[in-house]
């Protein structure tokens, strides 16, 4: 159900206050794993709940200064963590981190706890991310029915 494509790019842009240009970049760099990456001229890309999490996370990281091109190299791992969390939110690892090992290689790891020992890392809380998306969707639904 998390993978049903429901929202258009325009709706996502309005809901989260993310300009259209980064949304297009996220799709083209495959940071956001759309069901239909190239829907054809005149058709909007559609976003599932999983895509919303991927988008919000990418936007958050871009705000922190992480370039989308760099992020795209680790997108597959990050998206795997999100999919796993959405499938089993109670048992799957809640935290994801991008970290550097001693050889200064960038790695991705999933954790259930917050005791992290890396010298440098970007920490992501998938539960908080999911809650924020759910809150936003609940607000949008309330506005829709009020209208």
């Amino acid at each position: 159900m998390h993978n049903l494509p429901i929202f258009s790019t325009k709706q996502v842009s309005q809901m989260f206050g993310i300009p259209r240009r980064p949304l297009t970049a996220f799709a083209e760099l495959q940071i956001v794993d759309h069901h239909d990456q190239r829907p054809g001229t005149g058709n909007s890309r559609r976003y599932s709940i999983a895509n919303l999490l991927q988008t919000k996370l990418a936007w958050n990281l871009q705000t922190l200064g992480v370039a989308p091109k760099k992020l795209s190299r680790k997108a597959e791992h990050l998206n795997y963590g999100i999919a796993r969390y959405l499938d089993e939110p109670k048992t799957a690892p809640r935290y994801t981190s991008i970290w550097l090992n001693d050889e200064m290689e960038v790695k991705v790891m999933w954790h259930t706890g917050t005791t992290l020992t890396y010298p440098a890392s970007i920490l992501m809380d998938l539960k908080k991310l999911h809650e924020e998306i759910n809150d936003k969707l609940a607000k949008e639904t309330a506005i829709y029915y009020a209208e």
Partner: protein
Amino acid sequence: MPNKMNYNLPILTAREVSERFEIPLRALKQYAELGIVNLAKPRPGIGTARRFSITNIVQAYTAWHLQIMGVNQKKISTLQKDMIYEINQFLDNVETNNRHLMLWPSYTDYGPQVDVGRSDTPKPLFIGSVAINLRTLYETVLEKLEWSEQ
């Protein structure tokens, strides 16, 4: 442990820092020019090498870690003032001061911005935040400089 006063003595040239810490010379030059590293003499004149103190090396090494993880130089330079402040505060007492430099996004009426702070544990308090263990970096710097414990 080196005397705290020595932290600010300019000891290594940019080339030496580059060789010991495997940070490209070009990146070090940019850090100096963008103010990411707070050198005593950021523009020493033609033919004179820039000199880095231990504090400067920790600043540069932190920036390099951020860059490798994907944080762009432009963003680092906008945060340099706060980052330098936090690093210097940490170096005032490495044993007891909070060791994790944290960067996290916050959303204001003027748009998104990045806040800088320190915490004892690298808890991911936000959806996505950066944590740099300054204590580990500092110890690595000393190790690479071959300081002997006193």
